[in-house]
């Protein structure tokens, strides 16, 4: 099944130039984020003489109200967004997979309790809770990652639970049960590896959501706060300068849109490859 998924994914990517473009955008932005210090100016260097200068050869994206190079701030903002996206995804995927697998495998009361907990968390207004938690905790990248990670694992848990329910009736799981393997071993050795493709699909879309949430929080002045560059907080300060410097609002917004779009589209292509692989 894993092999099937890989083959199908390769043909899907080859057939679909847009998916390749999405992948390319993610790779370029990630590389830019990793090697930001190598090729960009200091994002926090002030240059009062050239404040709010429009895009030019010297400053590709212009400068902001403190004369900081907006291009390097955008690249560093991408660093923040991608870091939050990936790390929050790891946390939420880990919790989601563990809770979902245990819930599906154990069944009975454990299953009911865990699933009602998932329902309860899904009935909470997530964004409001994030805003509240952010106000409690100190603003900063670590807390933002934790908050988003701990509040977005529920849908993965539901998917993994459903998948576990069907996998645990399959022969290879029944055999390993009969041969006396522990539940822990069955879950981690046999069940989870067999739904890796599904987990990858959810994780990809999860990154997109995490990036959107981080940017929204920072836009509210809560998540990542200045001077650390983040696309959301850059948009927050750009809001008041719409008349004089609209480009300040356009660049970070387009970068968020492109990144989230790429992850969402890639997730969809992965999902399509999954359908083919399973039939």
């Amino acid at each position, binding site marked *: 099944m894993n092999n099937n998924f890989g083959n199908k994914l390769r043909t899907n990517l080859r057939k679909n130039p847009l998916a390749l473009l999405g992948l390319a955008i993610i790779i370029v932005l990630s590389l830019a984020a990793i090697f930001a210090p190598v090729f960009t100016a200091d994002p926090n260097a002030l240059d009062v003489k050239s404040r709010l200068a429009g895009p030019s050869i010297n400053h590709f994206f212009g400068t902001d109200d403190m004369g900081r190079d907006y291009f390097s701030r955008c690249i560093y903002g991408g660093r923040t967004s991608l870091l939050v996206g990936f790390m929050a995804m790891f946390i939420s995927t880990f919790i989601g997979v563990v809770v979902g697998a245990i819930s599906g495998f154990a069944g009975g009361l454990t299953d009911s309790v865990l699933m009602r907990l998932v329902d309860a968390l899904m009935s*909470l*207004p997530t*964004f409001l809770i994030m805003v*509240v938690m952010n106000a409690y905790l100190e603003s900063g990248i670590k807390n933002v990652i934790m908050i988003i990670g701990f509040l977005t694992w529920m849908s993965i848990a539901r998917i993994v639970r459903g998948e576990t329910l069907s996998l645990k009736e399959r022969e290879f799981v029944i055999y390993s049960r009969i041969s006396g393997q522990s539940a822990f071993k069955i879950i981690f050795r046999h069940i989870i590896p067999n739904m890796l493709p599904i987990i990858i699909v959810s994780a990809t879309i999860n990154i997109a959501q995490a990036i959107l949430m981080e940017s929204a929080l920072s836009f509210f002045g809560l998540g990542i706060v200045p001077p650390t560059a983040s696309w959301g907080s850059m948009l927050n300060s750009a809001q008041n300068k*719409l008349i004089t410097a609209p480009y300040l609002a356009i660049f970070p917004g387009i970068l968020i849109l492109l990144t989230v779009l790429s992850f969402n*589209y890639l997730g969809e292509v992965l999902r399509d490859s999954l359908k083919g692989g399973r039939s």
Partner: protein
Amino acid sequence: MKHLKNKLIQSALVLFLVSILCFTLSKLAPGDPVLTYVQPNMSESYIATLRERLGLTKPVYVQYFIWLGNILRGNFGYSLVNTRPVLDQILQRLPATMILMASSLIISVFISIPIGLKCGEKPSSAFDKVISALSYIGISIPTYWFGIILIYIFSVNMGILPSIGMHTDGSSSFVDLIRHLILPCAVMTFVNTAQFTRYIRSSTITQMSQDYVLVQKSFGYTRKEILYKNVLKNAILPMITVLGMSLQSLISGAMICEQVFSWPGTGQLAVTAVTTFDYPLIMGITMLTAIMIVAGNLLADVLYMIADPRIRSSL
């Protein structure tokens, strides 16, 4: 009826869990709640009596049950900032949020059904490709950024639509309200329509490959007849559940939108409550929103049962 009873019990359980989460969240909050009542000239012993009268010396689980009992009787406590009843404040702000959410929801449903059907009828046609691209943008765009762009185009540049608030000062005419509603409603409608269109498109594609469509084709019915008489009904049925499920993201979206457009709804109230550390108000809004989401899901389930004869007959 058994199915409905189960659903009701589940919903009650979920709300019970939500109330525990909500209460825990407020207890984890930094700061001593009694300090909001303390004035500089109060003596230590007076503060101690105050603490006792506020019920803060009781064990946490007792405090929880007192709080829960109050909520069940409709008493959500008083704001720490302006001492007004929490429920009154929320109810005062609710209509604004309802206008925004309901208008965008209704428009999105009416746009997404015909578009989704048309896309699902002929997937990968030129029309479908354009709509798919648009709906990808719709689910990926940061709502607040889209709002800023609309403000830039229609308020700053063209100057034809107001960018903040719900009414021009002193005016309460309907036209004025609509003019203020257009931009925030457009933002939410775009995002919702993108989501709904994707669901209807994929459920239409599934329906088109069903046996009954093939049978009707062989009986000589035209594509249009099959699509609008039979596929339509089956394809939009799951929309009821989708609407129930998307209630949560809808509320989050409204919250962000209200903030961008200074729309005087509950979302804005919530953000103010958080920034002023007004815990009773935060808890009240969280609880009421959760109740709305759970009730919405329950309503979706009931409507689905009424709409789907297969489930109705098993009741």
